[in-house]
């Protein structure tokens, strides 16, 4: 008895909350990021210019970066600081989400950017980089805090990580000085390669130093999904198999592959979107409430969902490839006619799947997901389709109200819509579906930060909640790999099997129709 009481007391003592900084309460940030250097690999590339550097500029503009912030841009091109800064300015004028540029902010931001030429296979070059960064710390008051951002080609990740390790750039100092690495998706191209990459990363960095970025998780509406589910009392009780008939998640793109033909030939829709964005959305929709809003608690719940997902690759997954057609009043070529694409390519540009989640909450509720290129519009949406009412009270009147629907729009026009039946005014008993619509734009009238701003700031603050953990990556590949393997051994459908500007192949419609469902018209 005494023993157990002591054990309980011991547990209690060990769970005593650490001293906290009470002055932080109510301030804008949980903490101001430490003085730090962002070391951006692939700084002359598309991702850096379109997303990463504009995000850093906006964080600077809105005073969310520390005064001692520095950006060390790493690339192979023979630039000097001024050339690189001029190129960045041109990119900001093109890609900044707020224009015109705040030139005062740029004037103070630009001197904090330095260009460092480096070939990724140059071991001596990494040693020089290490010395240069040490000199930076001394000169600019950044006490060894470094965020390595890998915006390079995915094939270079393993080598880059190894070089960072060889140069000792991963070592965190006892007296302070954190080292974190941000890795852009794709995290491998199948389960084996993901495991290999994770092993290589794990040889150099601890998991707590690794931030795998899936920018979908930084989007305002995706984050709001957590608030919507767990910050409101009225939705969560209806968020289960008892009330939900099925769930549809759509990630539709109207664009084609643009200039990424060679890349897309190696990935396809399943690796490009299904393995990451779509499965992340499924896990956020289906997860149980975490005990705390802390990185690992959140990710533990997401992993449980991924582990519970099952699908029949032969019967429950549909692939497609677009042919020529019209999108947004413009004639566009078929996939096989795109630059860098094999004219006989069997790469899928569309995938639709039915997943089931074998757990207490979702057993028997189908999750339909679809993603594709050259669909009629750009739209990302999660639709919770509720069950019909148990007794159709108004059926005799010749009216059958549609079942309730909750649609969470992630892009564009972020918002939430609830559909329900209402009586049409008049003497009869006509019932019509009406919607209650919440639009972020009109409710808050404030520009949302770009997902990259959110995520980079989180990484600088050491908050990994919205980043993908190693086991999430591997579990997601564990779902997608069997699909790709099945396709490899089965003959492909006759590609192209959908016109650009349509909602995908007929088989995608049939996937739902066989269970009495149909895709939502978006």
């Amino acid at each position, binding site marked *: 008895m005494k023993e157990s009481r002591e054990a309980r007391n011991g547990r209690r003592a060990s769970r005593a909350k650490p001293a906290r900084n009470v*002055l*932080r309460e*109510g301030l804008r940030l949980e903490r101001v990021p430490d003085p730090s250097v962002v070391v951006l690999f692939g700084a002359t590339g598309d991702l850096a210019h379109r997303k990463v550097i504009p995000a850093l500029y906006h964080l600077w503009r809105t005073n969310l970066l520390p005064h001692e912030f520095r950006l060390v841009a790493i690339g192979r091109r023979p630039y000097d600081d001024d050339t690189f800064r001029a190129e960045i300015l041109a990119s900001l004028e093109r890609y900044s989400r707020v224009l015109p540029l705040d030139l005062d902010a740029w004037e103070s931001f630009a001197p904090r950017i330095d260009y460092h030429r480096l070939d990724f296979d140059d071991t001596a070059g990494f040693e020089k980089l290490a010395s240069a960064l040490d000199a930076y710390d001394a000169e600019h008051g950044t006490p060894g805090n470094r965020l390595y951002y890998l915006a390079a080609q995915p094939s270079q990740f393993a080598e880059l990580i190894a070089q960072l390790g060889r140069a000792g750039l991963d070592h965190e100092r006892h007296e302070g000085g954190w080292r974190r690495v941000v890795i852009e998706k794709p995290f491998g191209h199948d389960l084996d390669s993901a495991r290999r990459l994770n092993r290589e990363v794990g040889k150099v960095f601890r998991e707590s130093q690794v931030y795998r970025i899936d920018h979908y998780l930084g989007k305002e509406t995706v984050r709001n999904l957590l608030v919507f589910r767990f910050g409101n009392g009225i939705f969560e009780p209806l968020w289960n198999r008892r009330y939900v008939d099925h769930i549809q998640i759509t990630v539709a793109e109207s664009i084609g592959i643009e200039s990424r033909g060679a890349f897309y030939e190696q990935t396809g829709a399943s690796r490009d979107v299904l393995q990451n964005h779509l499965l992340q959305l499924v896990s956020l929709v289906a997860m149980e409430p975490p005990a705390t809003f802390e990185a690992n608690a959140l990710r533990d719940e997401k992993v449980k969902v991924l582990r519970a997902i099952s699908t029949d690759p032969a019967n429950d997954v549909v692939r497609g490839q677009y042919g020529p057609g019209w999108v947004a009043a413009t004639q566009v070529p078929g996939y096989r006619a795109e630059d860098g694409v094999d004219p006989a390519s069997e790469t899928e540009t569309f995938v639709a799947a039915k997943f089931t989640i074998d757990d207490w909450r979702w057993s028997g509720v189908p999750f339909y997901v679809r993603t594709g290129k050259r669909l009629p519009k750009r739209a990302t949406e999660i639709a919770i389709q509720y069950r019909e009412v148990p007794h159709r009270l108004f059926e005799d009147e010749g009216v059958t109200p549609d079942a309730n629907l909750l649609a969470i729009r992630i892009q*564009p026009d972020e918002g939430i819509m609830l559909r329900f039946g209402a009586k049409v005014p008049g003497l009869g008993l006509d019932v019509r579906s009406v919607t209650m619509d919440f639009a972020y*734009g*009109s409710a808050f*009238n404030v520009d949302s930060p770009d997902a990259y701003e959110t995520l980079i700031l989180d990484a600088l603050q050491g908050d990994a909640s919205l980043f993908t953990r190693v086991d999430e990556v591997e579990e997601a590949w564990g779902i997608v790999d069997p699909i790709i393997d099945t396709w490899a051994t089965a003959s492909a459908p006759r590609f192209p099997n959908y016109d650009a500007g349509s909602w995908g192949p007929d088989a995608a419609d049939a996937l739902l129709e066989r269970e009495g469902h149909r895709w939502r018209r978006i």
Partner: protein
Amino acid sequence: MAPDLRPMETPTETHIHIGEPILRWSARAQSIAEIESEISGMWSAHHPQDGADDGSVRNIAARTSVMNLVVVASGPELAERSAATIQALTGRHPSRTVVIQSADPDGPSWLDARIEAHCVLPHPDAAETCAETIHVRSGGEAGRHLSAIATPLIIHDLPVTVWWPGEPALTGPAAKRLLAGADRLVVDGSTWRSDGLDRLRQMAELQEASSLAISDFALDRQSRWREAIASIFDDPEFLPFLRSIRRIAVTFATHDETGAPGSTNLVKPIYHVGWLASRLGLSVVRPLTAVGGAARASRANVGKPISGPGLGATLSDGRREVAIVIRPIVSPMAAGTTLRVELLAERRGSELRADVTAEAETVRCRVWLDGVEALDRRFRAPRRGDVDLLADAIESGRRDPVAAGALRSAAALVAPGGPGGSAPP
């Protein structure tokens, strides 16, 4: 009397600028009923979505569903300045703004209103959203009943914020009725007459007696100081000293070399102490009183002389006392501006000294541990203008416990009548 300006037949501008508000509607009215009728007409008969001015198809316009803002302006100059601030809230407008300006209180009752709708296209593919502004000038007895003007004009089910620039009459019956229907009161304590402390206490009493949330620009402007001070204790090495603070000294600018009581607004310096006291759970042992040179002799004076008379108080965490010093320095800065915040903490024989100063664009923190410099850090944190502060206030939700605590503690520091016996306004 019939409105003398009908709804605009054509919008005034012919080119849509993304994010820029464009005047889509304007009308005049001479009674509350006429105002209501004009607004109703604006959203039905002549919907702002009707056609774009350049003949192109425009996305459907919708009224924003954010909140109501009631501005109480005591004179035309204040009304104009407030309107300019609201106009500058590009894209962050309340759904409806009612600017009330009373005039000629002894004359006959009258009311004259101008109603405007400004619309913003946030993005090329988004719906245009509109916000209404009603400028009401009212005279005679009617002008004294603020609530009777504001209440029928607010959009129901949306939060109501009352912005009362200048000298708010917080204790009068008209104010009480107006604020009873409000969710948030926005003021700027740093502009109040005299030392501003009587009004600070009145505001704290109002807060305790109601569920009203209060935003004071004087406190909100200090957020850059608070971020910097808090950041010191993010460092695990310094964090243990947070509960061992023994002295808090705030230096502020004055233009009055005599240091006469009531010559300088003290709201901002006192908020620093109020914030720290509330966060650290300190209670008042001895409220603020004039200390003259007493503080100069204090052992814990961080080695800096006090210029001119100051105020002193004593707080306690229940075990040990914390000395408070608020001292003026003649400075060209705006009177009442904080120039420096110093903290002294003692723990297990070690001493931590922190010195925080601010410039236009940055705040600087320096820390010494046992006399050895342990931190020197600058934060990029420009001074915030009224537009930003108002935008933050109207976007705030319920009462912010940190702001409420800072006000409560600041008011507790001030004995009735103020430390220098300042006269009630």
